[in-house]
Protein backbone atom coordinates (compact mmCIF):
# COMPACT_ATOMS: atom_id res chain seq x y z
CA UNK A 1 0.00 0.00 0.00
CA UNK A 2 2.76 2.42 1.00
CA UNK A 3 4.81 1.59 -2.10
CA UNK A 4 1.69 2.25 -4.23
CA UNK A 5 1.33 5.71 -2.66
CA UNK A 6 5.02 6.48 -3.28
CA UNK A 7 4.70 5.30 -6.91
CA UNK A 8 1.62 7.50 -7.47
CA UNK A 9 3.38 10.58 -6.13
CA UNK A 10 6.54 9.89 -8.16
CA UNK A 11 4.36 9.53 -11.27
CA UNK A 12 2.65 12.87 -10.60
CA UNK A 13 6.02 14.60 -10.11
CA UNK A 14 7.31 13.03 -13.32
CA UNK A 15 4.30 14.32 -15.27
CA UNK A 16 3.91 17.83 -13.83
CA UNK A 17 7.37 19.08 -12.82
CA UNK A 18 9.21 19.09 -16.23
CA UNK A 19 6.57 21.43 -17.69
CA UNK A 20 6.95 23.85 -14.78
CA UNK A 21 10.77 23.82 -15.04
CA UNK A 22 10.65 24.36 -18.81
CA UNK A 23 8.48 27.47 -18.38
CA UNK A 24 10.73 28.68 -15.49
CA UNK A 25 7.82 28.97 -13.03
CA UNK A 26 10.00 28.76 -9.88
CA UNK A 27 7.48 30.24 -7.41
CA UNK A 28 4.79 27.92 -8.75
CA UNK A 29 7.15 24.96 -8.43
CA UNK A 30 7.73 25.71 -4.74
CA UNK A 31 3.98 25.90 -3.98
CA UNK A 32 3.33 22.76 -6.04
CA UNK A 33 5.99 20.78 -4.19
CA UNK A 34 4.83 22.10 -0.82
CA UNK A 35 1.20 21.07 -1.42
CA UNK A 36 2.32 17.73 -2.79
CA UNK A 37 4.56 17.20 0.24
CA UNK A 38 1.68 17.81 2.68
CA UNK A 39 -0.56 15.48 0.66
CA UNK A 40 2.24 12.89 0.61
CA UNK A 41 2.69 12.96 4.39
CA UNK A 42 -1.08 12.71 4.91
CA UNK A 43 -1.41 9.80 2.48
CA UNK A 44 1.50 7.91 4.03
CA UNK A 45 0.01 8.36 7.50
CA UNK A 46 -3.35 7.20 6.14
CA UNK A 47 -1.78 4.14 4.55
CA UNK A 48 -0.06 3.32 7.85
CA UNK A 49 -3.37 3.53 9.70
CA UNK A 50 -2.49 6.58 11.79
CA UNK A 51 -5.42 8.59 13.20
CA UNK A 52 -5.47 12.35 13.46
CA UNK A 53 -7.22 13.98 16.40
CA UNK A 54 -10.67 14.95 15.14
CA UNK A 55 -11.66 18.56 14.51
CA UNK A 56 -15.14 17.95 15.87
CA UNK A 57 -14.07 18.04 19.52
CA UNK A 58 -12.81 21.58 19.07
CA UNK A 59 -15.93 22.70 17.20
CA UNK A 60 -18.13 21.08 19.85
CA UNK A 61 -16.45 22.95 22.70
CA UNK A 62 -16.58 26.22 20.72
CA UNK A 63 -20.28 25.91 19.81
CA UNK A 64 -21.30 24.94 23.34
CA UNK A 65 -19.33 27.89 24.70
CA UNK A 66 -21.04 30.30 22.28
CA UNK A 67 -24.58 29.00 22.80
CA UNK A 68 -24.36 29.21 26.57
Amino acid at each position, binding site marked *: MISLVILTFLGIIAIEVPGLIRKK*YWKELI*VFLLLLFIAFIA*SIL*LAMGFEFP*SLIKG*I*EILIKYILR
Partner: protein
Amino acid sequence: MINKSLITSRQAFLLIVLANISTAVLFVPTTPVEIVNQDGWIPVILSTFFAALLLYYPLGAMCKKYPEHTIIQYSPLILGRFIGKLFAALFIYYFFIIHCLALREFGELVITFMPETSINVPIIFISLISIYTVKCGLEVMGRCAEIIFPLGFISLFIIGLFSIEQGDYTNLQPFMESSIMPLMIATLSPLDWLSLGLVFGIFAPCVNNKRSLVKIGIYAVFLSGAILTIFSIINILVFGSDLLKILNYPLLILSRVSKFEPFERIEVFIILLWVSWVFIRVSLFSYATVLGLSQLFNFTDHRFLIVPENLLAIAYSLFMYDSFVEMSYAFSISQLYYISIPLGLTIILWLTSIIRSKMKT
Protein backbone atom coordinates in the same frame (compact mmCIF):
# COMPACT_ATOMS: atom_id res chain seq x y z
CA MET B 1 -4.89 36.51 -14.40
CA ILE B 2 -7.02 36.59 -17.51
CA ASN B 3 -10.13 34.45 -17.54
CA LYS B 4 -10.78 33.54 -21.13
CA SER B 5 -13.62 31.11 -20.52
CA LEU B 6 -17.14 32.48 -20.62
CA ILE B 7 -20.36 30.90 -19.38
CA THR B 8 -23.93 32.01 -20.01
CA SER B 9 -26.11 33.30 -17.21
CA ARG B 10 -28.25 30.14 -17.35
CA GLN B 11 -25.20 27.98 -16.79
CA ALA B 12 -24.12 30.16 -13.87
CA PHE B 13 -27.62 29.88 -12.40
CA LEU B 14 -27.55 26.07 -12.67
CA LEU B 15 -24.06 25.90 -11.16
CA ILE B 16 -25.22 27.84 -8.08
CA VAL B 17 -28.30 25.65 -7.71
CA LEU B 18 -26.20 22.48 -7.98
CA ALA B 19 -23.64 23.81 -5.49
CA ASN B 20 -26.46 24.55 -3.05
CA ILE B 21 -28.66 21.49 -3.10
CA SER B 22 -26.73 18.59 -4.57
CA THR B 23 -26.12 16.89 -1.24
CA ALA B 24 -28.60 18.80 0.90
CA VAL B 25 -31.59 17.31 -0.91
CA LEU B 26 -30.65 13.89 0.43
CA PHE B 27 -30.46 14.99 4.07
CA VAL B 28 -33.28 17.52 4.21
CA PRO B 29 -34.95 18.07 6.74
CA THR B 30 -33.46 15.89 9.51
CA THR B 31 -31.66 18.58 11.52
CA PRO B 32 -34.57 21.11 11.63
CA VAL B 33 -36.99 18.29 12.49
CA GLU B 34 -34.85 17.34 15.48
CA ILE B 35 -35.41 20.82 16.90
CA VAL B 36 -38.93 21.85 15.87
CA ASN B 37 -40.60 18.48 15.07
CA GLN B 38 -43.39 18.76 12.48
CA ASP B 39 -42.64 22.43 11.75
CA GLY B 40 -39.35 21.39 10.16
CA TRP B 41 -40.26 22.86 6.80
CA ILE B 42 -40.75 26.43 8.06
CA PRO B 43 -37.01 26.96 8.83
CA VAL B 44 -36.21 25.98 5.25
CA ILE B 45 -38.44 28.77 3.88
CA LEU B 46 -37.04 31.26 6.41
CA SER B 47 -33.46 30.33 5.56
CA THR B 48 -34.12 30.87 1.85
CA PHE B 49 -35.07 34.49 2.53
CA PHE B 50 -32.16 34.97 4.94
CA ALA B 51 -29.70 33.55 2.42
CA ALA B 52 -31.06 35.74 -0.38
CA LEU B 53 -30.86 38.83 1.83
CA LEU B 54 -27.59 38.18 3.67
CA LEU B 55 -25.49 36.38 1.07
CA TYR B 56 -26.74 36.53 -2.52
CA TYR B 57 -27.73 40.18 -2.71
CA PRO B 58 -24.41 41.46 -1.21
CA LEU B 59 -22.40 39.00 -3.31
CA GLY B 60 -24.20 39.97 -6.52
CA ALA B 61 -23.82 43.67 -5.76
CA MET B 62 -20.08 43.30 -5.15
CA CYS B 63 -19.61 41.15 -8.26
CA LYS B 64 -21.40 43.85 -10.27
CA LYS B 65 -19.15 46.53 -8.78
CA TYR B 66 -15.96 44.60 -9.65
CA PRO B 67 -17.00 42.81 -12.85
CA GLU B 68 -13.48 41.71 -13.83
CA HIS B 69 -12.40 40.37 -10.43
CA THR B 70 -13.18 37.31 -8.35
CA ILE B 71 -13.97 37.51 -4.63
CA ILE B 72 -10.36 36.52 -3.92
CA GLN B 73 -9.10 39.50 -5.93
CA TYR B 74 -11.47 42.21 -4.72
CA SER B 75 -11.29 41.50 -1.01
CA PRO B 76 -7.72 42.97 -0.85
CA LEU B 77 -9.02 45.91 -2.92
CA ILE B 78 -11.80 46.58 -0.39
CA LEU B 79 -10.16 45.77 2.94
CA GLY B 80 -6.54 46.57 2.28
CA ARG B 81 -3.73 44.17 1.53
CA PHE B 82 -3.26 42.30 4.81
CA ILE B 83 -6.85 41.78 6.06
CA GLY B 84 -8.07 41.28 2.50
CA LYS B 85 -5.60 38.46 1.91
CA LEU B 86 -6.62 36.94 5.25
CA PHE B 87 -10.29 36.99 4.19
CA ALA B 88 -9.35 35.46 0.84
CA ALA B 89 -7.44 32.68 2.60
CA LEU B 90 -10.48 31.96 4.78
CA PHE B 91 -12.71 31.77 1.68
CA ILE B 92 -10.27 29.30 0.10
CA TYR B 93 -10.24 27.25 3.31
CA TYR B 94 -14.05 27.13 3.15
CA PHE B 95 -14.05 25.95 -0.48
CA PHE B 96 -11.50 23.26 0.40
CA ILE B 97 -13.54 22.03 3.38
CA ILE B 98 -16.69 21.83 1.24
CA HIS B 99 -14.75 19.92 -1.42
CA CYS B 100 -13.64 17.38 1.22
CA LEU B 101 -17.14 17.11 2.69
CA ALA B 102 -18.69 16.50 -0.74
CA LEU B 103 -16.17 13.72 -1.40
CA ARG B 104 -16.84 12.14 1.97
CA GLU B 105 -20.64 12.29 1.62
CA PHE B 106 -20.41 10.72 -1.83
CA GLY B 107 -18.26 7.90 -0.45
CA GLU B 108 -20.60 7.31 2.48
CA LEU B 109 -23.62 6.94 0.20
CA VAL B 110 -21.84 4.62 -2.23
CA ILE B 111 -20.78 2.26 0.55
CA THR B 112 -24.39 1.94 1.74
CA PHE B 113 -25.05 0.32 -1.65
CA MET B 114 -21.75 -1.58 -1.76
CA PRO B 115 -20.93 -2.43 1.87
CA GLU B 116 -17.93 -4.63 1.05
CA THR B 117 -16.12 -1.86 -0.81
CA SER B 118 -13.65 0.37 0.98
CA ILE B 119 -14.65 4.04 1.15
CA ASN B 120 -11.40 5.05 -0.58
CA VAL B 121 -12.49 3.57 -3.91
CA PRO B 122 -15.49 5.83 -4.79
CA ILE B 123 -13.63 8.89 -3.45
CA ILE B 124 -10.56 8.23 -5.60
CA PHE B 125 -12.61 7.54 -8.72
CA ILE B 126 -14.74 10.68 -8.47
CA SER B 127 -11.56 12.66 -7.83
CA LEU B 128 -10.07 11.32 -11.07
CA ILE B 129 -13.13 12.54 -13.01
CA SER B 130 -13.04 15.85 -11.16
CA ILE B 131 -9.32 16.37 -11.98
CA TYR B 132 -10.08 15.84 -15.65
CA THR B 133 -13.06 18.22 -15.59
CA VAL B 134 -11.21 20.98 -13.77
CA LYS B 135 -8.33 20.70 -16.24
CA CYS B 136 -10.89 21.19 -19.04
CA GLY B 137 -12.09 24.42 -17.45
CA LEU B 138 -15.23 26.22 -16.35
CA GLU B 139 -16.99 26.10 -19.72
CA VAL B 140 -17.08 22.31 -19.63
CA MET B 141 -18.50 22.39 -16.12
CA GLY B 142 -21.19 24.82 -17.23
CA ARG B 143 -22.22 22.63 -20.13
CA CYS B 144 -22.18 19.54 -17.90
CA ALA B 145 -24.50 21.37 -15.51
CA GLU B 146 -26.91 22.07 -18.37
CA ILE B 147 -27.13 18.36 -19.18
CA ILE B 148 -27.02 17.02 -15.63
CA PHE B 149 -29.43 19.34 -13.87
CA PRO B 150 -32.55 18.21 -15.84
CA LEU B 151 -31.63 14.55 -15.26
CA GLY B 152 -31.56 14.97 -11.50
CA PHE B 153 -34.56 17.27 -11.55
CA ILE B 154 -36.67 14.69 -13.40
CA SER B 155 -35.58 12.01 -10.90
CA LEU B 156 -36.58 14.25 -8.00
CA PHE B 157 -39.90 15.04 -9.70
CA ILE B 158 -40.66 11.33 -10.21
CA ILE B 159 -39.77 10.45 -6.61
CA GLY B 160 -41.87 13.30 -5.25
CA LEU B 161 -44.84 12.51 -7.48
CA PHE B 162 -44.87 8.79 -6.73
CA SER B 163 -44.61 9.19 -2.97
CA ILE B 164 -47.07 12.02 -2.41
CA GLU B 165 -50.09 9.73 -2.27
CA GLN B 166 -48.61 7.91 0.73
CA GLY B 167 -48.56 11.13 2.71
CA ASP B 168 -50.68 11.64 5.78
CA TYR B 169 -51.82 15.21 6.29
CA THR B 170 -52.17 14.85 10.05
CA ASN B 171 -48.36 14.57 10.23
CA LEU B 172 -48.10 18.31 9.64
CA GLN B 173 -50.39 19.14 12.57
CA PRO B 174 -50.25 20.94 14.98
CA PHE B 175 -49.10 23.77 12.78
CA MET B 176 -46.66 26.38 14.25
CA GLU B 177 -46.42 24.59 17.57
CA SER B 178 -42.88 25.79 18.33
CA SER B 179 -42.01 29.30 19.42
CA ILE B 180 -39.80 31.75 17.55
CA MET B 181 -36.45 30.97 19.20
CA PRO B 182 -36.28 27.23 18.35
CA LEU B 183 -37.37 28.13 14.80
CA MET B 184 -34.44 30.51 14.49
CA ILE B 185 -31.97 27.90 15.80
CA ALA B 186 -33.41 25.37 13.35
CA THR B 187 -32.92 27.90 10.53
CA LEU B 188 -29.14 27.61 10.90
CA SER B 189 -28.92 24.19 9.32
CA PRO B 190 -30.72 24.94 5.99
CA LEU B 191 -28.87 28.27 5.91
CA ASP B 192 -25.65 26.27 6.04
CA TRP B 193 -26.68 24.36 2.90
CA LEU B 194 -27.93 27.41 1.06
CA SER B 195 -24.82 29.48 1.76
CA LEU B 196 -22.64 27.19 -0.35
CA GLY B 197 -23.41 29.45 -3.31
CA LEU B 198 -20.52 31.62 -2.13
CA VAL B 199 -18.67 29.89 -4.96
CA PHE B 200 -20.57 32.31 -7.24
CA GLY B 201 -17.98 34.89 -6.20
CA ILE B 202 -15.33 32.81 -7.99
CA PHE B 203 -17.01 32.35 -11.36
CA ALA B 204 -18.99 35.62 -11.54
CA PRO B 205 -16.33 37.34 -13.76
CA CYS B 206 -16.81 34.59 -16.34
CA VAL B 207 -20.56 35.23 -16.78
CA ASN B 208 -21.08 36.86 -20.17
CA ASN B 209 -24.07 39.01 -19.21
CA LYS B 210 -22.76 41.20 -16.37
CA ARG B 211 -26.03 43.09 -15.85
CA SER B 212 -27.91 40.05 -14.56
CA LEU B 213 -25.45 39.08 -11.78
CA VAL B 214 -27.69 40.04 -8.84
CA LYS B 215 -30.73 38.41 -10.44
CA ILE B 216 -28.88 35.12 -11.08
CA GLY B 217 -27.97 34.68 -7.41
CA ILE B 218 -31.42 35.57 -6.08
CA TYR B 219 -33.28 33.34 -8.57
CA ALA B 220 -30.88 30.45 -7.89
CA VAL B 221 -31.35 30.59 -4.12
CA PHE B 222 -35.13 30.74 -4.53
CA LEU B 223 -35.15 27.67 -6.81
CA SER B 224 -32.89 25.77 -4.37
CA GLY B 225 -35.02 26.84 -1.43
CA ALA B 226 -38.21 25.82 -3.24
CA ILE B 227 -36.87 22.32 -4.01
CA LEU B 228 -35.65 21.85 -0.44
CA THR B 229 -38.98 23.09 1.00
CA ILE B 230 -41.04 20.78 -1.22
CA PHE B 231 -38.98 17.76 -0.22
CA SER B 232 -39.07 18.68 3.48
CA ILE B 233 -42.86 18.83 3.29
CA ILE B 234 -43.08 15.53 1.40
CA ASN B 235 -40.72 13.82 3.86
CA ILE B 236 -42.69 15.05 6.88
CA LEU B 237 -45.98 14.03 5.20
CA VAL B 238 -44.79 10.50 4.44
CA PHE B 239 -42.67 9.67 7.50
CA GLY B 240 -43.90 11.95 10.27
CA SER B 241 -41.47 13.84 12.47
CA ASP B 242 -40.71 11.00 14.92
CA LEU B 243 -39.49 8.58 12.27
CA LEU B 244 -37.68 11.28 10.33
CA LYS B 245 -35.37 12.03 13.28
CA ILE B 246 -33.70 8.63 13.06
CA LEU B 247 -33.34 8.34 9.28
CA ASN B 248 -29.88 8.82 7.79
CA TYR B 249 -30.93 9.46 4.20
CA PRO B 250 -34.63 10.45 4.11
CA LEU B 251 -34.76 10.80 0.32
CA LEU B 252 -33.28 7.31 -0.19
CA ILE B 253 -35.90 5.75 2.10
CA LEU B 254 -38.57 7.87 0.39
CA SER B 255 -37.60 6.43 -2.97
CA ARG B 256 -37.80 2.93 -1.48
CA VAL B 257 -41.33 3.37 -0.17
CA SER B 258 -42.73 5.33 -3.10
CA LYS B 259 -44.58 3.29 -5.68
CA PHE B 260 -46.85 3.92 -8.60
CA GLU B 261 -48.11 0.85 -10.46
CA PRO B 262 -46.22 -0.64 -12.30
CA PHE B 263 -43.12 1.24 -11.11
CA GLU B 264 -41.50 0.26 -7.82
CA ARG B 265 -38.04 0.42 -6.23
CA ILE B 266 -36.94 3.62 -7.91
CA GLU B 267 -33.69 4.01 -5.91
CA VAL B 268 -31.80 3.87 -9.18
CA PHE B 269 -32.93 7.47 -9.73
CA ILE B 270 -31.25 8.43 -6.45
CA ILE B 271 -27.98 6.97 -7.69
CA LEU B 272 -28.34 8.87 -10.97
CA LEU B 273 -29.11 12.10 -9.14
CA TRP B 274 -26.45 11.68 -6.50
CA VAL B 275 -23.52 10.68 -8.71
CA SER B 276 -24.17 13.31 -11.37
CA TRP B 277 -24.93 16.20 -9.03
CA VAL B 278 -22.11 15.49 -6.59
CA PHE B 279 -19.72 15.26 -9.52
CA ILE B 280 -20.56 18.87 -10.41
CA ARG B 281 -20.21 20.00 -6.82
CA VAL B 282 -16.86 18.31 -6.33
CA SER B 283 -15.39 19.72 -9.53
CA LEU B 284 -16.82 23.20 -8.90
CA PHE B 285 -15.33 23.46 -5.41
CA SER B 286 -12.05 21.95 -6.55
CA TYR B 287 -11.95 24.60 -9.30
CA ALA B 288 -12.75 27.32 -6.76
CA THR B 289 -9.99 26.23 -4.39
CA VAL B 290 -7.38 25.94 -7.13
CA LEU B 291 -8.27 29.22 -8.84
CA GLY B 292 -8.45 30.97 -5.48
CA LEU B 293 -5.02 29.70 -4.42
CA SER B 294 -3.44 30.77 -7.70
CA GLN B 295 -5.00 34.23 -7.44
CA LEU B 296 -3.97 34.60 -3.80
CA PHE B 297 -0.32 34.09 -4.77
CA ASN B 298 -0.65 35.96 -8.13
CA PHE B 299 0.21 33.01 -10.35
CA THR B 300 -0.30 33.16 -14.10
CA ASP B 301 -1.80 29.67 -14.37
CA HIS B 302 -3.86 27.56 -12.01
CA ARG B 303 -3.74 24.15 -13.67
CA PHE B 304 -0.57 22.85 -12.04
CA LEU B 305 -2.25 23.01 -8.62
CA ILE B 306 -5.18 20.75 -9.52
CA VAL B 307 -3.55 17.38 -8.82
CA PRO B 308 -1.94 18.24 -5.44
CA GLU B 309 -5.15 19.92 -4.27
CA ASN B 310 -7.24 16.89 -5.15
CA LEU B 311 -4.78 14.53 -3.44
CA LEU B 312 -4.88 16.68 -0.34
CA ALA B 313 -8.69 16.69 -0.44
CA ILE B 314 -8.81 12.89 -0.72
CA ALA B 315 -6.50 12.50 2.28
CA TYR B 316 -8.31 15.10 4.38
CA SER B 317 -11.77 13.77 3.54
CA LEU B 318 -10.70 10.36 4.83
CA PHE B 319 -9.13 11.86 7.95
CA MET B 320 -12.06 14.12 8.78
CA TYR B 321 -14.44 11.70 10.44
CA ASP B 322 -14.18 8.11 11.62
CA SER B 323 -17.68 7.03 10.63
CA PHE B 324 -21.01 8.19 9.24
CA VAL B 325 -22.37 8.59 12.76
CA GLU B 326 -19.58 10.98 13.70
CA MET B 327 -20.12 12.90 10.45
CA SER B 328 -23.84 13.40 10.99
CA TYR B 329 -23.21 14.38 14.61
CA ALA B 330 -20.70 16.95 13.40
CA PHE B 331 -23.24 18.32 10.91
CA SER B 332 -25.82 18.74 13.65
CA ILE B 333 -23.54 20.85 15.86
CA SER B 334 -21.22 22.74 13.55
CA GLN B 335 -23.60 24.90 11.48
CA LEU B 336 -22.55 28.12 13.17
CA TYR B 337 -18.94 27.33 12.32
CA TYR B 338 -19.73 26.70 8.66
CA ILE B 339 -22.08 29.69 8.29
CA SER B 340 -19.67 32.20 9.80
CA ILE B 341 -17.31 32.20 6.80
CA PRO B 342 -19.73 32.72 3.87
CA LEU B 343 -22.30 34.88 5.65
CA GLY B 344 -20.22 36.80 8.19
CA LEU B 345 -17.22 37.60 6.02
CA THR B 346 -19.33 38.48 2.96
CA ILE B 347 -21.43 40.92 4.97
CA ILE B 348 -18.32 42.57 6.45
CA LEU B 349 -16.83 42.85 2.95
CA TRP B 350 -20.02 44.33 1.49
CA LEU B 351 -20.57 46.86 4.30
CA THR B 352 -16.94 48.00 4.05
CA SER B 353 -17.25 48.47 0.29
CA ILE B 354 -20.42 50.56 0.76
CA ILE B 355 -18.81 52.72 3.47
CA ARG B 356 -15.70 53.25 1.35
CA SER B 357 -17.67 54.32 -1.70
CA LYS B 358 -19.79 56.67 0.45
CA MET B 359 -16.65 58.24 1.94
CA LYS B 360 -15.21 58.89 -1.50
CA THR B 361 -18.21 60.89 -2.74
